[in-house]
């Protein structure tokens, strides 16, 4: 289910990043440069709005920034692995190393919830988190996601 929304162009591996909003901007800019989305600011605004209401940094070094907006035509799913971690104001106050960004149009609510639920479930598996963190290329991350996406 997850793999239908992912490809290598939507996966970033970074050593470090200044803060969570810089990371989200980098992810959105990547999608924009690949022509997957057509606009930047409305999406960033919606995600910032959501992050200000509540941090989407969950626990165990994972964050799932997510929002619904008409600024996207289809569900957008991206992954970033940040080797040195980034502060997401997580509930456990630990730095986040893996970020799944999910943005969907309003009418794709059901699919959006399904994707969030699947990723949340996968992220509870330590083996999955470790494999992503140890991956050295987007290709490898994609392969890991496919393996656990069952």
């Amino acid at each position, binding site marked *: 289910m997850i793999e239908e929304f992912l490809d290598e162009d939507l996966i970033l591996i970074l050593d470090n990043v200044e803060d969570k909003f810089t990371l989200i901007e980098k992810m959105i800019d990547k999608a924009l440069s690949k022509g997957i989305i057509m606009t930047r600011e409305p999406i960033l605004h919606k995600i910032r709005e*959501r992050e200000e*209401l*509540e941090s989407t940094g*969950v626990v165990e070094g994972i964050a799932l920034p997510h929002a*619904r907006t008409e600024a996207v035509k289809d569900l957008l799913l991206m992954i970033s692995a940040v080797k040195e971690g980034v502060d997401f104001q997580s*509930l456990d106050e630990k730095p986040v190393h893996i970020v799944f960004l999910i943005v969907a149009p309003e009418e794709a*609510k059901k699919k959006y*919830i*399904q994707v*969030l*639920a*699947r990723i*949340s*479930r996968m992220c*509870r598996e330590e083996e999955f988190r470790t494999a992503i963190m140890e991956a050295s290329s987007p290709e490898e991350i994609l392969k890991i996601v496919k393996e656990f996406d069952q």
Partner: protein
Amino acid sequence: MERILLYIVSGELRTSWNRAIELSKALSATLYALYIVDKEIVRKIARLKGDGEIDTAVKIEEEGWKYLYYLEEMAVDSGVKTALFLEEGNTIDILRSFVREKNIDLLIVGHSREQGIGGRKGERIIEQLVEYIPCPVLIEKEGGF
């Protein structure tokens, strides 16, 4: 009142979801939502369906996350700050420790005869909640009474 906990039993118990959102908004409280994958229930469902326990637990967990995210969408639409949690283990033990650790001020749980905490087991859980949970408990009656 700063922290309200909604124990999510089923996606059908929406009266309790709405109550939790209304109260959190009115009191400017953070809404904590908790779904528990109860191992005893996993075993029973696996046995009934003839499936493996691991596969059953995975399905129940994913279903739990869906409920949590549906609730989050409703809460966000109302401008209520939420925090989602999914835990595995014995329902009462987890609720009791969760309430203590997170300093929960009020626990809200939906109850109906047909869904979620229903039947004899449900009656027992409700009794245990009232007896053992170290905070006020609001049991929201759902339809069907």
